[in-house]
């Protein structure tokens, strides 16, 4: 029920947002504020782009870590990676997320991941890898901005940064090199999972945003008559 309620709220929120924006839309001129639709679409594309980037980066980085991390069927237990936000979630729970929560979770997750990634960046050795990591970080930064933009377009406040998360990666005192690599491995894996999830999240949001766009079109046609 909660989930449905959340869904309904989301829809209502969307409808409200659209209705709120409708008066602002000039009847025959759509050059004004395009609404969150394009932003959502762009964010979705960005997640796809980051996914593509990460695929290349992960390959390079796992090779840098060496075996067994670069083996295709390497699937270690998730040890010492509890600080990383989990992307995996129950499907029902995921479906029941409202837009705000969904966006907030994404924003928070990427904020955390970005902090971890920057720590990873600091330790990386190869210059080319460092550049790739830096670019990926920048892109992730862009994704955060993009999500923030969508949230702003939808009227949601940005979540407050968690205290202690901002200093980013604090290397644990008892971390061995292997465990460190394990953390790196899980960081990349979690990033990938989050990007997949985000793609679905924004696809879902995108689809949600389309009916109001149709309504606008209908409205325009009615106005035209």
């Amino acid at each position, binding site marked *: 029920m909660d989930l449905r309620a959340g869904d309904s709220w989301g829809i209502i929120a969307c409808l409200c947002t659209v209705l709120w924006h409708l008066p602002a839309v000039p009847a025959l001129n759509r050059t004004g504020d395009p609404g969150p639709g394009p932003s959502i679409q*762009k*964010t979705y*594309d*960005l997640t*796809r*782009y980051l*996914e*593509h980037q990460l695929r290349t980066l992960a390959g390079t980085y796992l090779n840098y870590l060496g075996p067994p991390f670069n083996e295709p069927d390497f699937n270690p237990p998730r040890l010492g990676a509890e600080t990383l936000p989990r992307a995996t979630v129950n499907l029902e729970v995921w479906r029941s997320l409202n837009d705000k929560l969904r966006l907030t979770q994404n924003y928070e997750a990427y904020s955390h991941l970005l902090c971890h990634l920057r720590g990873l960046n600091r330790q990386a050795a190869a210059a080319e890898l460092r550049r790739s990591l830096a*670019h990926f970080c*920048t*892109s992730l*930064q*862009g*994704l*955060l*901005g*993009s999500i*923030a*933009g969508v949230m702003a377009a939808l009227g949601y406040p940005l979540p407050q940064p968690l205290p202690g998360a901002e200093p980013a990666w604090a290397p644990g005192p008892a971390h061995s090199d292997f465990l460190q690599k394990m953390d790196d491995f899980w960081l990349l894996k979690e990033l990938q999972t989050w990007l997949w999830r985000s793609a679905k999240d924004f696809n879902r949001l995108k689809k949600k945003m389309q009916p109001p766009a149709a309504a606008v079109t209908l409205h325009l046609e009615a106005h035209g008559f």
Partner: protein
Amino acid sequence: MPARWTWTGRVLFLLLAVESLGELLDPCGSIVPEAPVVPLGANLTAVCVLKEQCMRDLHVRAEDIFWRTNHVAVPRRQYAVLNSTAASVTLAGLSLLSVQLTCNVRTFGQLDQNVYGVHVTAGLPPEKPENLSCIVPEGKRMTCQWDAGRETHLETNFTLKSEWATERFADCRARREAPTSCTVDYSPVYFVNLEVWVEAENALGRAVSAHLNFDPVDKVRPNPPHNLSVSSSEELSSILKLTWVNPSITSFMRLKYDIQYRTRGASAWTQIPPEDTASTRSSFTVQDLRPFTEHVFRVRCMKDDGRGYWSAWSEEASGTTCEDRPSKAPSFWYKTEQPLAHGSRSVRLLWKTLPPFEANGRILDYEVTLWRGKAAVQNYTVNDTRLTLNLTGDRYRATLTARNGVGRSDAATLTIPACDFQATRPVRDLKAFPKDDMLWVEWTAPGQPVTSYILEWCVLSDRAPCVPDWQQEAGTVHCTFLTGTLEESKCYLITVTPVYVDGPGLPQTTQAYLKQAPPSKGPTVRTKKVGKNEAVLEWDRLPVDVQNGFIRNYTIFYKTSAGNETAVHVDPSHTDYTLSSLTSDTLYMVRMAAYTDEGGKDGPEFTFTTPKFAQGEIEAIVVPVCLAFLLVTLLGVLFCFNKRDLIKKHIWPNVPDPSKSHIAQWSPHTPPRHNFSSKEQMCSDSSVTDVSIVEIEAGDRKPLPEDLKSLDLFRKDKASTEGHSSGIGGSSCLSSSRPSICSSEDSESARSTASAVQYSTVVHGGYRHQAPPAQAFSRSESTQPLLDSEERPEELPLSDALDGLPPGQPPFQQSGGPRLSGCGPGSPVREEDFLPDPAAQPPACGLGKAFPEALAAGALGPGLEGPIGGLEAVGVEAELDEGLPKSYLPQTVRRGGYMPQ
């Protein structure tokens, strides 16, 4: 010593240098502003402030300051004294980019001293950069470019700035050598809007371009698709399938494509309609291609919504479509090689190989079927494009198909008419003309429906035979171009034959050039006839090989050696021309040029000279002159003839002709002489008188015995009777030409009427009855060489007989009578032989003692009555008389003439 001086010199130099350096380091004043940069055309005010210490030392004031720009003093009206130590200058409208401005003072003694100097730079503030645009090549960094605007003449920095809504990126400084573009040093993040702008800044200002906000993905130029390959389909000969690998950007971006193709060797590309390739894909099937043709493909891509840039073209890939059956029947024609003879004729069937786009594959062979009437006569399978057949005179029909690996073409049908077929219905208004580097042929169709047209053409040449090429056109075509390789400047003989269902029509022919040129040789002109004032020139037509075009006209240039050239245009149909109004007796130089549409060519020069007189002019003068001369001569002759007596009287005095003198005819009846000698009888037929003439020559001393004998007889007879002679002896009028009666010592001789007789005619008879004493004439006084030698040739030595004659001269040749040796019927005596020689007569040798009887006879000249009777009676004498006129020597005085004395 020199080393020491050098050392001292160095010290002095150092001291001076330090001192001057000190002055430089501590100048007497300063200029504000220190390094002014001013806009071009603006005013600059600079202030020079003097140090008080200096003013005291040099005893100068602010009023003593003066300024120089580039070593030229600035007029004082631009100065202003601000206070006791400072003065300013205002430079208005600076137009120079760089000016050296110095502040100077004039000390005592008019010594100018530089106080301070600055470098004034002029330029322009930067303009706002325009047309900012950025491009993001896939996998590379973003590059933006812009228009810098006007030249500022100053060092201007352009900075490309970029930022997100939440973050700012590092500035990109344009390099000095390329101030209008910059490549950022970070990889752009797609799908996040970026704001970029350009700032231009120099000493005079700063300008910022408009901000450009875009998603870098909308400025992407993707990498081109790669690994393009082409594959054909066995089932469809008109399609080829392209496959390629997309650039990696397709993993997050959709693409559209641009596919182009062309046949191998062609230059123009054909584009696949863009709407067919507007979505991301990695393969495409191209349709409607020609069978059995190699095609070349290339492909490029860009973002599907059209934002961004097209990628570069992929590498080209080629593929060949599969074969298909020939799409068209070959062109089909025939030639009669040998006309009908002995019931058979030879016909060569010709056809053209199909062009690749119609053959649709490799042609394996051709099949020819020959029909007579409705029945197929024979089938032939030929690899060549010709087939020679021996046919009867009937009408035949031939069909031709081409075969390739897939199938056969449609059949081409050709009707070979019977031998007695008369071709009619030609095309009309046939013309050929060059256009667009091709030779076009145009005609008007005949009224009847035409199956096809056959065009044949060949190069018209005197050197090579006409080897025709041909092509076939559909019956609906009325204008086409010749498909073969044609040469310029060659005359093409083009024949168009319409082909009807029942056979070919009448061919029509025309000539054309693909491109004309001036003739390669000019015509050789020569004269056919040259008159006094005109000349007929003639030339041969140029051979078709050197014409290089249609000869439109000839031009004849002629001139005298000194005169201007005259040109005459002549129609090309002529081969001669008459130049008139020429000057006589003048050398003319003439040459001739032939012109085609493209120009002309001169032939060799020919010279000729006009004669001084026209033909017949000389004759017209000479003939009348000759005629006149002749007439005058004739008239003169006539006149002389008419007046010959008068002239004769003046020129030739009347010399009595001794031959016409008659001594006398005193013995009218001379006894017959037939008893004398048989020899005389023999000569009686001729007109030989009794006078025998003996030629006495040096080498011929032998007298003619018979003659002499007769003479001898004669003499004896005379001597026995009364030998008489013309009155020579004692005549004193020998030289008188007039008849006169000369006195004579002898009365007897006086009776003879002969006068001025130089010699005697000895006539026997006469007074033969008389017997004058022979002694009385023992010696003749005549100077004439009378027939003394005849009298006594044997007794008279030649030297005596020819006494007084010049040696070697025949003494009696001219006066002698007919020679006895020549006596006979065939030797008439000619008068010319006896031309008188008056000069020789007087000194004629005297008779000496040769003819005493004769002289005696002469002296005893007969009476007047005597001779008549004598002549009548004596036949020989009669003959003698008749012969007398012809003989000069024995001049006889005719009756009525002069009588010898």
